[in-house]
């Protein structure tokens, strides 16, 4: 448990000392969302209609953008091999790295989302559900993304390949994330959607580290 905590702390410290990572992801998120009013026109009704979808799609892309940093640096300087040799199981290493990744990139996305919802004129009833849905959904994004990031370690054109592998797997999170917000705005029950998002996260917490650790092992062979 102590090793786990130290690993999370190390990754967080690295991220904050190097800086930039979280800021870049949030910057990309905000800028891309701001493009939409220019693209589809500034009419408040249209923006309110597409707002939830735009925020979720952009959050997926922003999460994707940061994924190739998850293992690459450790893979290149050899720390990943040391981590693999450590007494901590590789699966736990993956969970620790995903947790740090989520704190650095997922959490800022959740915090930035209400501001963007304001820009897009989202209905007030959608705000709490949007934040809740993103809190439940973004950990799944980090966890599913870790599988792709581990699989494409050392691949040619890894970044493009990563998006080809991971975006199809992100679709369920997107569907239920948007459905929850739209249900709340429409005055329907949003609980089932949030529960399914939570179920995705609970399923991803044990399953994704298994696949990721297997992928890392074959990358280190």
């Amino acid at each position, binding site marked *: 448990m102590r090793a786990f905590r130290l690993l999370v702390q190390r990754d967080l410290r690295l991220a904050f000392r190097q800086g930039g990572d979280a800021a870049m992801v949030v910057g990309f998120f905000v800028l891309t969302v701001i493009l939409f009013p220019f693209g589809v026109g500034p009419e408040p009704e249209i923006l309110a209609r597409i707002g939830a979808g735009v925020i979720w799609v952009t959050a997926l892309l922003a999460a994707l953008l940061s994924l190739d940093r998850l293992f690459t640096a450790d893979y290149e300087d050899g720390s990943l091999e040391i981590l693999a040799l450590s007494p901590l199981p590789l699966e736990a290493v993956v969970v620790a790295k995903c947790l740090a990744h989520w704190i650095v990139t997922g959490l800022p996305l959740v915090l930035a989302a209400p501001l963007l919802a304001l820009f897009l004129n989202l209905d007030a009833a959608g705000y709490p559900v949007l934040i809740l849905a993103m809190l439940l959904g973004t950990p799944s994004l980090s966890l599913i993304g870790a599988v792709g990031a581990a699989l494409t370690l050392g691949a*040619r054109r890894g970044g493009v390949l990563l998006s080809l592998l991971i975006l199809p797997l992100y679709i369920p999170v997107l569907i239920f994330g948007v459905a929850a917000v739209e249900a709340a705005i429409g005055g329907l029950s949003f609980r089932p959607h949030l529960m399914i998002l939570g179920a995705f996260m609970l399923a991803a917490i044990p399953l994704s580290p298994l696949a990721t650790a297997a992928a890392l092992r074959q990358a280190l062979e």
Partner: protein
Amino acid sequence: MRLSAAVLPWCAIATALTLGVGLYLALFVAPPDYQQGEAVRIMFIHVPAAWMAMFVYGNLALASAVALIWRHPLADLAGQAAAPLGAGFTLLCLVTGSLWGQPMWGTWWVWDARLTSVLVLFFLYLGYIALVNAFDEPTRGARAGAILALVGVVNIPIIKFSVDWWNTLHQPASIMRMGGPTIDASMLWPLFLMAIGFTLYFLTVLLIRIRTAIIARKLQVLRMAELEPDEDFAGARSAS
């Protein structure tokens, strides 16, 4: 190799026969549907293609599991040989479904649960093919692809049950369901023949592809063996 060489011609003949008879029955003998008219004949391609898309993915996942657990090189080859075929069947399924949907539903494409999950299956096949070819070292690509194939298995039950879970445009299962099929025998038989024909076609092309891959690898080994003395010579010269 010897077994596959013996089986291959028979497979090819059986494929041609069943596909030929199946197509004849489907296109000329089977009656037009009382609602769908002649467009129902698209179903004789569409449904077997959809079955094959899932069946091939099952095979791919099975081969991947065997490759990861027992490290059998033939399983890797089988998976890599099956993936483009599966992608082809999935594409065929999507295209014929779209052609059928235009007159029947009045639209080429809807974001229905079944359609979306099959589209995801198509992207999984493409991702597998891209990942396998993305590494300089073929064994790494094969290993990574196998893991991806196993991760993608979650999509298969979603496709199968999507029509029951979400009640959208795509009609629910009418053949593999409790209480027997709901379609008439005059349409069921051509459909089964087509399904068998598609499976045999898959088997034939799969065998050809695996044989080609094995021969290509043997050729590569022979070429390497031929080159080796020269390389040693070059190495010795640069060392001195």
